């Protein structure tokens, strides 16, 4: 197969991923589970954490941004495939000449775009309503983009069990996302958490995104910046590869 036809095939698959992204934007961004688990959840967690406590804005705003990113970017993946299985559109989709990998890449892109866009809101609110300020904008942008990609991959990985009901997968996704939220330095910086939490924190991708975002607001990062980016890249790669593998295994289940 020539390099030219390889290039053409790659472009076709990339185009397919973008078409999947477009479909997901039109169909899923405003679905109730996305709004509840992706947008309302972080707001309520923020209020539960902040109200009645004397916490400095510089401590709250980066956590809020990281938490919004975590919930929004990982909200799309667990919804799309189970929804399509239940609506009986999945079979038609996987019989198109778009590879399963490209379809899943489109789902990851959907979470990435949703997460990185929505997380701009707490950044702006933090700048307007508090005295928290961004000291390193490129790092903030890089942290948000890298985090969004990783969390969107996690969302797609969580969608792999062949459940017939989207609510089962949303439940599973919260069973994974909520515990990780508390050990990733969102509410309390990792160096101030108990020792056991410090051991668990490196296993959570949110810890690295949170460290990058805190560093962008002027805190000293718990992990070196390069390590954060490296680990987010690693998590993304492993989770996406696992998603492709599991989706292939469960491809025909629940049709």
């Amino acid at each position, binding site marked *: 197969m020539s390099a030219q036809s390889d290039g053409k*095939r790659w472009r*076709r698959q990339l*185009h*397919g991923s973008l*078409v999947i992204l*477009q*479909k997901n934007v*039109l*169909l899923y961004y405003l679905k109730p589970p996305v709004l509840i688990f992706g947008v309302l959840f972080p707001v309520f967690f923020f209020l539960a954490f902040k109200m009645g406590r004397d916490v400095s804005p510089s401590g709250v705003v980066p956590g809020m941004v990281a938490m919004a990113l975590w919930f929004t970017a990982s909200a799309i993946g667990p919804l799309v495939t189970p929804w399509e299985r239940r*609506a*009986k*559109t999945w*079979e*038609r*989709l*996987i*019989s*198109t*000449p*778009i*590879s399963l990998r490209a379809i899943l890449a489109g789902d990851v892109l959907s979470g990435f775009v949703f997460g990185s866009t929505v997380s701009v809101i707490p950044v702006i609110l933090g700048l307007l309503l508090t005295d928290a300020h961004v000291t390193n904008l490129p790092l903030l942008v890089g942290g948000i983009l890298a985090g969004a990609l990783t969390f969107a991959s996690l969302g797609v990985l969580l969608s792999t069990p062949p459940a017939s009901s989207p609510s089962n997968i949303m439940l599973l996704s919260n069973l994974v996302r909520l515990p990780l939220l508390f050990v990733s330095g969102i509410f309390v910086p990792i160096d101030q958490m108990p020792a056991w939490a410090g051991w668990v924190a490196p296993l959570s991708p949110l810890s690295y995104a949170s460290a990058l975002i805190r560093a962008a607001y002027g805190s000293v990062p718990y992990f070196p910046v390069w390590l954060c980016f490296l680990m987010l890249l690693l998590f993304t790669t492993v989770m996406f590869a696992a998603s492709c593998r599991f989706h292939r295994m469960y*491809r*025909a289940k629940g*049709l």
Partner: protein
Amino acid sequence: MINEAAEIETVIKVNGLTRRFGNLTAVDDISFQVVRGEIFGFLGPNGAGKTTTVRMLTGVIEPTIGSATIQGYDIRKASILSREHIAVVPEQANVYLDLSVWRNLMLMAELYGIPRDRRVSSGERLLEALGLLKRKDSKARELSKGLKQRLMLCAALVTEPEVLFLDEPTSGLDVQSARLIRKIVRELNADGLTIFITTHNMVEAGDICSRVAIIDKGVIVAIDTPGNLRSMVRKRQYVEAVFREHAPPQEKMESIPGVIRLESDQEVFRLYTEAPGSVATLLGVLTDSLGLELEQLNTRKPSLEDVFLYYTGDGGIE
């Protein structure tokens, strides 16, 4: 990755295809070919393996053993290339209910990489042909089942396939929609499209298919043109007679040479035979000799339904 030039006319080539789900063998070592321009019917009772076969051929599930090619592309080794040549209207699949009719169409065309000008013009033409143009901007959830099925067909055809897979396309549809879909299928075939259709509607299969395969318990039990299949089940041919006032005694009719058995349904008598012509002649002679009169005399070939029942284990009488 085209295997042989000779295969070009063979659009679908299936060789020893098998699919197991745990201990259940849903499709067991089936082989057949579909040539360009055919309407190939795949008939079988519920659970016979029709949909599993279609899902393997369209890349939805992988075969356990065996191989198949579509337009020369192996469905396992060159799955994406093989899927570029096909479009599917699955039995239970649905359109995107929250998208408009038009967006559903354009989405499918974009997934197949159809250029914008072509997908717009063919989209409008197809909606017009299938009576959906006025509903272009309606959400798909507002359509009836029949209109959704028409939309599924539009969404398949807008991708410009060379082979169209239709899985029970008219199942549960109103008469108008079913008739329209059959008409469109015939027209598409006349334009050169190869069609693979699964159905358990024998009238439909006999009406539109150029060849049919009958699958039962995962195994292909017969494959030929509907006419040849009907002829093969020669014992199900019969002479149908209605007599004015009185019929000859049954034992006399049963003793006509070539009569295998006699059935009667009030005044209608059916004499099953492998030689309906000579039995009809002899029945006429018998009736005359007894001074009786025939009101109707017809020779009947078995219907495709008779053939189907014969091969799928409910032929019973044989």
